[in-house]
């Protein structure tokens, strides 16, 4: 199936297509306070442990993928791959491309249900000196280093839109996802929130 995909004439459309424009926006003076990198084409899948199978699942993920299953509120992401805690017994698996997760369902059969979500989310990486302040306009969780650090994640909402966020590094940089159908509205909020700091958009804007 996966081999077939590479030959497809169909082009995927980025969740940000027609929504985000690359370049500098908002306040133009000085360094941009917020840097927004658009994620695209990543592989995402929900992984839900069957009752009583969490230990076995943990083992197999380590053995087969080198992944460790994060605790509640955790995110074990290295580079563009890893697992982000989403709910009790439930994680979001992340990989560079949608195909990179192709073998996951088979590998954990009987231990966990795997559901492809590669298309379900719009992902943006938020960094820059004012990233925290900009995000705090919509997020109702505390991003201060004493409360939220690299390797931590949260499922929450941002400006009435459901969101999942995890911290990638101490810069800090955050990966933030919202449901795909909300991309336009989410961006409108993000623009409003980041404009006073000046922000720069990097990455694809779709075809």
């Amino acid at each position, binding site marked *: 199936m996966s081999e077939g995909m590479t030959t*497809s004439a169909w082009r*995927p459309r*980025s969740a940000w297509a027609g929504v985000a424009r690359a370049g500098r926006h908002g306040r133009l003076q000085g360094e941009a306070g917020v840097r927004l990198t658009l994620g695209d084409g990543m592989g995402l899948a929900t992984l839900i442990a*069957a009752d009583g199978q969490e230990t076995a699942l943990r083992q197999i993920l380590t053995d087969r993928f080198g992944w460790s299953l994060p605790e509640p509120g955790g995110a074990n992401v290295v580079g563009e791959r890893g697992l982000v805690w989403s709910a009790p017994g439930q994680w979001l698996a992340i990989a560079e491309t949608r195909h990179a997760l192709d073998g996951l369902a088979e590998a954990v059969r009987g231990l966990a249900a795997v*559901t492809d979500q*590669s298309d379900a989310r719009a992902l943006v990486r938020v960094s820059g000196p004012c990233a925290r302040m900009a995000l705090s306009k919509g997020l109702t969780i505390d991003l201060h280093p004493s409360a939220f650090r690299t390797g931590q994640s949260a499922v929450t909402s941002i*400006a009435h839109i459901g969101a999942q966020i995890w911290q990638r590094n101490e810069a800090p940089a955050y990966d933030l996802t919202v449901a795909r159908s909300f991309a336009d*509205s989410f961006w409108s909020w993000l623009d409003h929130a980041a404009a006073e700091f000046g922000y720069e958009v990097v990455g694809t804007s779709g075809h």
Partner: protein
Amino acid sequence: MTTITLRRSEAGTAAVSPGRNQAFRTATGGLINRQRPLDFSFDGVRHLGFEGDTLASALLANGVRLVGRSFKYHRPRGILSAGSEEPNAIVELRTGARREPNTRATVAELYDGLEAQSQNRWPSLKYDALAVNAFAAPVFAAGFYYKTFMWPAAFWEKFYEPMIRRAAGLGRAANAPDPDTYDKAHAFCDVLVIGGGPAGLSAALAAGRSGARVILVDEDHQLGGRLLSERREIDFRSGADWAQEAVAELESMSEVRILSRTTLFGVYDHGAYGAVERVSDHLAVPSAHAPRQRLWRITAKHAVLAAGAIERPHIFGGNDRPGVMLAGAVRAYLNRFGVLPGRRVAIFTSGDDGWRTVADVAAAGGQVVAVIDSRSSVSPNLRREAEAVGARVIAGGYVSGTKGHLALKAIDVVDTYGSSETIACDCLAMANGWNPIVHLDSHLSRRPVWNEVIQAFVPGALPSGMAAVGASAGRLTLAECLKTGAQAGAEAALALGFAAAARDTLKTDPEGIAHTPLWRVAKPKGKAFVDFQNDVAASDVELAHREGFRAIEHLKRYTTLGMATDQGKTSNLAGLSIMAELTGQAIPSVGTTVFRPPFTPVAIGAFAGHHRGKEFRATRHVPSHAWCEEQGAVFVETGLWLRPAYFPVAGENDWMQTVNREVNTVRSKVGVCDVTTLGKIDIQGRDALALIERACANPFGTLAVGKARYAVLLREDGFVMDDGTIARMSDTHFVMTASTANAAKVMQHLEFCHQWLWPDLDVQMVSISEQWAQYAVAGPHARDTLRDVIDPGFDIGNEAFPFLACADVTVGGGIPARLFRISFSGELAYELAVPAAYGDAAWRAIMQAGSQYGITAYGSEALSVMRIEKGHAAGAEINGQTTARDIGLGGMLAKKKDYVGRLLKERPALTDPDRPILVGFHPVDPAQRLRAGARFLAVGASPSLEADEGYMTSVAYSPSLGHWIGIGLIRRGPKRHGERVRAYDPVRSADIEVEICSPVFVDPKEEKLRV
């Protein structure tokens, strides 16, 4: 008393001469920038002020004392205070769409070009026609309107009420869309310090030095609180200098955030606080990308309340005359703003604190004409100091009345022997003690308690994690403010595990706070006001007492005392004290008023933030949205979704023409519709089927892999919750759809069933609504169209893939997809699900593939027409008031399993054979139009509730039949096919005869969908 000179602004002396009319500006002094003159206007007259001024201080500097008219009697009013408690000096600030009525001049920062107007007067502030009300004051006593305006009854709305409404109200709202933007932010801290005066600064320093995360909030633009307004000394420097150093130190701490121009307006449960930051209100217009205001939601582990205290006025005749001010305000104007509130100042005090005004007036070049102290015994030192500057001292006396029309000219003073005299003055400073600000600590339903020493309410027991300090805790001296603040800051930090180091006690100059409040003067001359803004006088409190309104809430509501924009900050206790006197009770026995948020009024826009206009709620777009936009689709809001409603093409000039074409094309050729908005839930696991069986009212045990089935869910009360389909992808894997409107609700319900009702079921459930774009391809050529979209090798023919089949397929050369043979339209139809990123491509591929068959895109309107033609229930029928039986689904309910809603659906009223049941309707005259919402009644019956037999739920013009059709609920419907009834629709002036028929109008034998 040590006298300390305030830090003078650098260019105080000669560089800039006082502005054109700043006749009352002192030559030097004040925390204003005399190098930055600011142009402003009041009632169209231009004046100059300085940076650092408030509108009130700038007006006083220019000798403007009359600033408004009172609410009821339109009495001339001036400036009473220098802070946010101001009841009198409220103006309309700005113009046009930015006009802000009821703005307190005492806290409005001056900016260049500021325009303000007085309000509640006509034609002008000086000559206000409604000032005649003052002569009718004997009639307009508290509550007079409850006793009259009743005859004739019809006159209320037409005459009395409009008259009262026009006279009432204060300023005029702009009532144009607010051109500015608002922002929200969420902040978290260990210690929240509310108030940036000496107590708050001390608390913030103590907590901040420990490393705790501190947020310090102050409503002023400059921190320091009363230190800015008093000539006080801390550790041998001026209080203002000390405050500046404290702020500098706080600013150097990385974990301390200072929010100035920010009012902490409300305390909510579990450490949640609301604050509003006036980001741009000190500017003519906000700068680019900056909001006007920002609403802060602060979550704090501990809070230190250091909000200060509010000075109390005296209650005597004419105490509302412009020129009568709080003594602390007089000192604020003198010391902080370099303004003389009057040249000849009298002081009326009931405590030592008021005497502080004497030296300040003198130092600023004013004349103190008299000090009237209601206490008969006055300290010789105070007396000596006053007499040294030429003031008369009248101990044991009181001010009984005032003279002057638009401004104070003299006061009537009664001395201790009862003889009265008149003393000329243009400013009277009142000092009757201070009321701690106990507002915030009572937001969580805590009652303040009475403190005999300071004769005021102080915070009672506070919720854990909250401490009150300084003046707001009734610790009124500067030394106590510094001490209690530092203590509470350190304690809060310690409690949270931060090591807080104790510092040396700060030295302050001595101060006297001896005080014996005078709740009201014995014999006032003229109306003695308690609530200035609402024109509630002492006599109104007496009337309320006479009429039995003695409980504090009764007093407030009957007289409106404390209900004005200042919420009684200067009047509540005065009202209480008079009632106490009248009822012979102690003040706390009368009651305490309940302080409600917000502390001071907050712009509604700030609460809404970004969420207004189009951004009120998020908009969800379907995967085909870009194509729909390209095609000029007309969209419709469906919950949060924006769905294409129909797709007009050239030559079509009304929506019905378009929809008819779409329906006809589907029924004769093929069409495609974006149904992504349906909720989609992935259900896997050993017990997936068991959960489905318990959640759904119809049986699923027999559902084979590769098959889909209609599903109906009931609420536990037996009414229909939602319907959808469930497809079995494997033994342990199901995909369920829910209606667009109920998608989230169904997901929540299934989680409830799983987590709470049947926790032992091993089920893994997740929403896949966003993962899959889902398109209905319907019509005789649906299969032909899809054959070109689905990869070769998948047999979607009728035998291999019959009605209600489902399967995994691939499209576009290897892209995984799901195909369901289900039909909402009644045609041969499929729903194709593709990964959402390929939704756009898939849609275009379907349009391309179907073009040879004349495919059309169809929207929610055509979808709705076709489902009505097929008699399928949707939102209008599944409205929470209908049972499965009501909507014709009774027959499919399972009999041999337990499921949600099983028992209660059998209640007598729900199985009553007389209940309205879903049937079809068509107009007897085919030319007539049907309307949903019409009520059914027998032909010839006269309309009444008893005659009501049900109502039309959904209607459509059926292009297939060439006339309007409807479905609806009518008593015993299925037994009445062929009967004629009236569809009565008086709200749209319609009343037509309809015939009851089967709800399935098209292809009742379902031949089309099984081919």
